[in-house]
């Protein structure tokens, strides 16, 4: 059998080794919790129902909100990891979909060490999948600095955010004409959209367009993060790209998004979201890894048994005994009757009819 273990088990062991504690969510939570923070969620649509006492409940669309609202420590940092199913609308099928998330949250007195450690865990989580991977870093403070420096008026600011997030280089010229931007501004936006893949080169270039104190702090923090991993095997796995965006009502610093080769969308999303905590001096950083597609692509080999015993009218006791003898020797064994071993058993060694 392939020697790969269960991804969930591997990740949970990894997070526990960093002192993170397991967090288990209730199956349902009051709808009001999600309603108050619905713009934090990827969609405001969720599965709701009335509980026996009449309260409107929701089938968990998210985990972060629950942890932030329930587990904020009075002092220090609370570190939690989880593996949970969440239920979200699926555009492709026009219905709800159950997704498995494994992730972590650190909440409380967050500092640069906690953030760097979260980034390290994000890199290690992607590495566990087994394929080629990239972790893309961004920071809302840089993007907002740029948007506010260039854009006058809410409509233009929104268009600029959209142009950066979607890398709409073709729209920059049109927006520039429509809103009579200064000549250099169009070039600035295009340069920020097309930063080089090497992180330090990207940051050197971006630093020319860091407008305001916060944007400059963002560049410094990103540079410190990149440098923290220089000389390690993760150095080449990090990219800087400000197309990674987050809702500015919640996110206030670094953002990250992880990709694995062969999987179409981002598989890991996270960042710094002190504003969600909403308490002076308290912060939060965390990420979620969407594991369904990773498991399907890199861990599905485990469903094949090492040995298939094709039985037919046999002595059941003897059959079970011979299967168990093989299992005792470390093999996985499945019993299939009368040559009906279908495709999913074919990778195993086939033993015919134990009479």
């Amino acid at each position, binding site marked *: 059998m392939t020697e790969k273990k269960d991804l969930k088990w591997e990740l949970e062991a990894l997070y526990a080794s960093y002192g993170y504690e397991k967090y288990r969510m209730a199956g349902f939570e009051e709808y009001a919790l999600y309603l108050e923070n619905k713009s934090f969620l990827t969609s405001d649509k969720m599965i709701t129902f009335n509980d026996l006492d009449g309260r409107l409940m929701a089938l968990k669309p998210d985990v972060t909100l629950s942890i932030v609202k329930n587990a904020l420590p009075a002092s220090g940092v609370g570190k939690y990891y989880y593996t949970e199913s969440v239920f979200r609308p699926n555009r492709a099928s026009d219905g709800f979909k159950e997704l498995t998330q494994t992730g972590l949250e650190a909440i409380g007195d967050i500092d640069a060490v906690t953030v760097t450690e979260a980034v390290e865990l994000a890199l290690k989580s992607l590495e566990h999948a087994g394929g080629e991977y990239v972790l893309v870093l961004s920071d809302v403070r840089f993007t907002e600095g740029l948007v506010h420096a260039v854009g006058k008026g809410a409509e233009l600011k929104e268009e600029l955010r959209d142009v950066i997030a979607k890398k*709409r280089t073709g*729209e920059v010229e049109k927006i520039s004409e429509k809103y009579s931007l200064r000549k250099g501004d169009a070039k600035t936006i295009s340069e920020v959209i097309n930063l080089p893949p090497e992180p330090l080169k990207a940051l050197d270039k971006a630093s020319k367009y860091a407008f305001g104190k916060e944007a400059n702090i963002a560049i410094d923090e990103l540079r410190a993060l990149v440098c923290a991993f220089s000389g390690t095997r993760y150095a080449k796995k990090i990219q800087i790209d400000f197309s990674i965006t987050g809702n500015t009502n919640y996110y206030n610093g670094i953002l990250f998004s992880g990709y694995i080769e062969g999987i179409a969308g981002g598989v890991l999303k996270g960042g710094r979201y002190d504003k969600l905590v909403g308490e002076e001096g308290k912060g939060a950083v965390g990420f979620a890894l969407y594991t369904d597609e990773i498991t399907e692509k890199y861990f599905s080999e485990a469903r094949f048994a090492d040995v298939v015993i094709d039985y037919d009218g046999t002595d059941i006791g003897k059959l079970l005994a011979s299967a168990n003898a093989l299992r005792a020797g470390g093999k996985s064994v499945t019993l299939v009757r009368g040559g009906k071993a279908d495709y999913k058993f074919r990778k195993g060694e086939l033993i015919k009819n134990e009479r």
Partner: protein
Amino acid sequence: MSVNIALPKGRLADKTLELMKKAGILKKVEDAGRKLVFEDESGFVRYFLVKPWDVPVYVERGVADIGVAGKDIITENTPDVYELLDLKTGKCRMCVCAKNGYVDRPGATLRVATKFVNTAKGYYASMGRRIEIIKLNGSIELAPLMDMSDVIVDLVETGTTLKENDMRVVTIIAEISARLIANKASYRFKREEIDRITSELGALINENN
């Protein structure tokens, strides 16, 4: 690493292939016939022809690394992809059109026939106008002529069909052209190849415009 490209069947595919050959991205443009997948001699690109509305789906799901899609389809379906380049071809306009002589009654619910449901909803929502959408799949101009709708929201290229049917453009909602779109994960892992295609096509487009 070779790049998979989804192209919309029809004129836009022909134009794009011609452009890619001129830019040196493709060695040879094959006759389409009934074939759907084409491997270029260069080994650098593999392209396939799909329905225009399906291009963003192939790109978003990563089957194609990049693709060519009309801005109308991108706006309507809002796929989670990067929009790297305006190819400045396939130009037309998304418009509100009505029969000549039609007078709008702002207090009444406006009946809007269209294939572009989300675009129409978004446009009228931004104006706070109450509408009733009538979703059609083709021959949209027929709806106001048969008094099934007050207006239509549709693409207008030359305006000939409108003229022939005694109709006119009431408002231009957006300028439309073809865009080069990219899958977000492919952009990470095939950056060099995608950058090469984008910059070579971009340089050629700038020369021509």
